[in-house]
């Protein structure tokens, strides 16, 4: 029985080592989608259908057009930049991991001046949407998602 328990402990340790790489990955796949939402003629870009159906409960927009989709493999505390319409720049920095959430610092600059910054804990494989800036008879939405494997 004693030998059996020893074997079980060894197996448990091996199992724990198999799970460890979930935390060991130091790169975060970050995707930024820049979307133009408006109340114009009904239109949803194919890749935005789930996004638009989720947002229709809170927004009155009828048109969702994808202006830009950028994927970046970012190391922790390294910034990723996305140029936005209207002289704006979005800067995302993955900062840390808490549980199964990725810490992000997000900064929006306009004409080299910070107009908005936030720190969020984003669920792994999920996204946050930041919106509001007016653009061409509509509004800009920035959908930021992060995933670690």
């Amino acid at each position, binding site marked *: 029985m004693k030998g*059996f*328990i020893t074997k*079980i*402990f060894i*197996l*448990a*340790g091996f*199992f*724990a080592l198999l*799970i460890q790489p*979930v*935390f060991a990955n130091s790169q975060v796949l970050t995707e930024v989608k820049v979307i133009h939402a408006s109340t114009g003629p009904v239109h949803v870009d194919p890749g935005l259908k789930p996004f638009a159906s*989720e*947002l229709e*409960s*809170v927004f009155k927009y009828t048109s969702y057009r994808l202006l830009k989709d950028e994927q970046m493999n970012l190391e922790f505390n390294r910034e990723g930049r996305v140029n936005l319409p209207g002289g704006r720049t979005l800067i995302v920095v993955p900062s840390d991991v808490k*549980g*199964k*959430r990725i*810490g992000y610092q997000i900064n929006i600059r*306009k004409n080299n001046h*910070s*107009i*908005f*910054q*936030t*720190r*969020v*804990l*984003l*669920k792994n494989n*999920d*996204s*946050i*949407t*930041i*919106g*509001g*800036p*007016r653009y061409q008879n509509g509004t800009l939405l920035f959908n930021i998602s992060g995933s670690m494997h």
Partner: protein
Amino acid sequence: MEKTCTRYRPEQISRFVDHELAKGIQDEVARHLVSCPDCRGLVDRYTALDRGFNHLAEHEILKFDPDQVKQRLGSALEDSRPPGIRVLKFFNKNIYLKLASIAAILIISLIPFRGALFDPSGPSAIVKSVDSDVASIMIFETQKEQHTIIWFSET
């Protein structure tokens, strides 16, 4: 004998006999019984039935010998068990113990990783801080997927 009074149904009378009606209705039925021989007859029948049943049950309980039943059940089980299983009785216990040890050790080793294995609940993003020069900021989430949205107005 068929009940002719329609004020109370037989089920209600039965519940009256068992004291299962609400206090007010129980009193109402009691008052009605004074003037209704039909319902009173039904109450008498149910009461007699109740008494008979209780008597029978008591009689059967007195005849019941738990030790004798246990002994009979034990020997019946022993007889019905195939010989191989009887021999493995000791090992069976041991297997359960082994399985329990495996389960316990796996659970203990998984505790530090529970955050990595199971999706956290709550909104898609927890907003720790917001700093801005803009006029107004709103934070909200959608109902279905709990998708977090930060809304700011530049003007």
